[in-house]
């Protein structure tokens, strides 16, 4: 659509400088639509953002703040998406923020009544970043449906902290904040599961890695970018360009201010 660039600029403006001040810790909140993610956002930040049982509701710019153990946290609520494979603008926004916005921690909120489908997004997030916490929400609904989840085992399988919550009732939120804080301040580290693909794909990745490492350096997860290139994701170039352009502008602006 003709206003794609407008939207992108708006998004990057919102997402690239979310902090109150430089020492704030930025946390991204991702998840499938309909997982109670916004309830968690509201509960943590005390903000009043609407939470509807309506898949696909877009919220473009939701930032909230909270404090924990003396640190200031900025929580960015990303649009609810089924995946990060950039099929729609929402997915691109979410992906771009997790990837380029470099949040200290990405919290993936999942629906305990439908964990299998929700894990899809979690695994995709883990391909982009190691700094993730899984939140299994709606545990009361799950219990009502006769579903119980072995959270510790899930944590072992995924290699990241897993916290169970019933956000509606405020249960589990302290533990969630704790896990976020521990990961953000590097009190704990993660060793997330990595997915292996077919031999042909893995070989192509191996072939592309040296050049990618040269081009991207430390900045982006090389394996993840390789996969995007292989699957023909056109949006990745645009995102890289936009994000770094925005960053340049911010830098230039900051430099100009100093003179």
């Amino acid at each position, binding site marked *: *659509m*003709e*206003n794609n660039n407008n*939207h992108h600029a708006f998004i990057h403006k919102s997402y690239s400088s979310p902090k109150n001040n430089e020492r704030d810790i930025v946390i991204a909140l991702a998840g499938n*639509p*309909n997982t109670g993610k916004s309830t968690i956002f509201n509960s943590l930040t005390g903000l*009043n953002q*609407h*939470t509807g*049982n*309506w*898949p*696909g*509701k*877009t919220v473009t710019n939701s930032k909230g703040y909270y404090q924990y153990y003396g640190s200031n946290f900025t929580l960015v609520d990303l649009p609810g998406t089924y995946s990060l494979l950039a099929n*729609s603008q929402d997915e691109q926004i979410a992906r771009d923020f997790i990837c380029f916005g470099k949040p200290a921690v990405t919290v993936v909120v999942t629906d305990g*009544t439908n*964990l*299998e*489908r929700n*894990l*899809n997004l979690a*695994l*995709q997030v883990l391909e982009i970043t190691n700094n993730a916490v899984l939140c299994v929400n709606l545990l009361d*609904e799950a219990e*009502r*449906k*006769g*579903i*119980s*989840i*072995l*959270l510790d*085992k*899930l944590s072992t*399988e*995924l290699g990241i902290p897993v916290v169970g919550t019933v956000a*509606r009732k405020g249960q589990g939120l302290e533990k969630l904040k704790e896990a976020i804080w521990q990961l953000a301040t590097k009190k704990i580290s993660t060793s997330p*599961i990595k*997915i*292996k*693909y*077919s031999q042909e*794909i893995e070989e*192509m990745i191996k072939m*592309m890695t040296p*050049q*990618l490492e040269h*081009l991207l350096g430390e*900045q982006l997860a090389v394996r993840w970018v390789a*996969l995007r*290139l*292989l*699957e*023909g994701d056109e949006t990745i*170039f645009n995102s*890289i*360009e936009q994000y*770094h352009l925005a*960053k340049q502008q911010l830098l230039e602006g900051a430099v100009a201010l100093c003179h």
Partner: protein
Amino acid sequence: MSLTIDKLQQLKLLSQQSQLDSDLVRDQIVSEIYKKSATIADKVILKKPHKKLDLDTKLDDILTSRIFGYPIMLLLLGLVLWITVTGANYPSQLLAKIFFGGQEQLTVLFQYLNAPDWLHGILVLGVYRGLAWVVSVMLPPMAIFFPLFTFLEDLGYLPRVAFNLDRFFRKAGTHGKQALTMSMGFGCNAAGVIACRIIDSPREKLIAILTNNFVPCNGRFPTLITIAAIFFGAAAGAIYSTYIASLVVVGIVLVGIAVTLLTSYALSKTLLRGVPSTFTLELPPYRKPQVMRVFIRSVYDRTIFVLKRAIVIAAPAGAITWLMANIQINGSSIIEILAGFLQPFGLALGLDGYIILAFILGLPANEIVLPILIMSYLSQGSMLELDSLAALKNLLVANGWTWLTALNLLLFSLLHFPCATTMLTIKKETGSLKWTALAFIIPTAIAILVTFTIAQMARLFGLL
């Protein structure tokens, strides 16, 4: 150092070197991720036979059934509208009383300060009155409608509405989700436009945005109900009058829906041509809405919205209206002059110059159209309302109104351009001046066409 354009080029070249079919790679990637999800899920989930799914299924059996599905939908819509209109009545009157009392106090203050008349006029009779009007008319219905709507939303019912209606919207060139954006429009068209974000296809989203105004919002309902009650209800005699009036309003709403579908169809075949998008809509499990939370937050949100709008838009509108009613040029107020200028055009549409002017001045907010009209007819210096419907009817008839005027006013109100808030919202959502302009032009053109045609036909067949 950040990436340069040159490096991006190299990245692009690199991707082109891939020997693998990108579609197949994508399939593989998604499959592998799902396989992994399934494996992990198997290991960590313990499932017992569940009863809740049955409740969901039973609810859906009724709500999407052939027999009950549509009647329930219509019933719910009617119920929500009825509760809104009836429930807002008393609070609106109460607020009006409070504001009127406040106005008297202000007038006393101004007199005490020996403030000039014109200042009192602009600030109290113009700005304050404008504010008071918008708040007392808009706040109560919105504070009722939106919590009700949100309640249905949180319940999980709304996707079922899209599910039930999709076929009809697809035939009209759009998407079942448009039914929901239209429903939001009943509360407020600006909110309806924002709701269009749930439509994925840009083309279909635009169609939904452009046609949202054909659903009458809370600001227009009082006007529709009042005119319907006076001219059509009263005609049927005291006992049936409310029923007839209600029927007329329902009829208007149905006309709005019909015009929406027709215009959507026309747009999808001309300006917004394209292929139908996909449905792929998730029907979430039913959830118990947190009633108190929904209510409190909704009321809070709506109150803020109405107050903001009142201050930003209604206040200046009130001031301007007062000025136009009280500045005299050669013995006539500006309103009288403009109304005279618009008279031929108005008559052609089965209306009159004052009505057209009232709609134009009502651009900032639909709810001030009727007060402005009454003020103009009475050559009064400030907006007002008449205490009884009978008095209002007499006033209108004395100014040449017939059933045709009433009918065309209802239709014009339904079909005309969106209010300023809605247009600003459209500009923000589409980012395009072109579409915002079209959002103004298309409904207005239709409104003019319809009223003109009806007026001419009525005169032709001597029905007057």
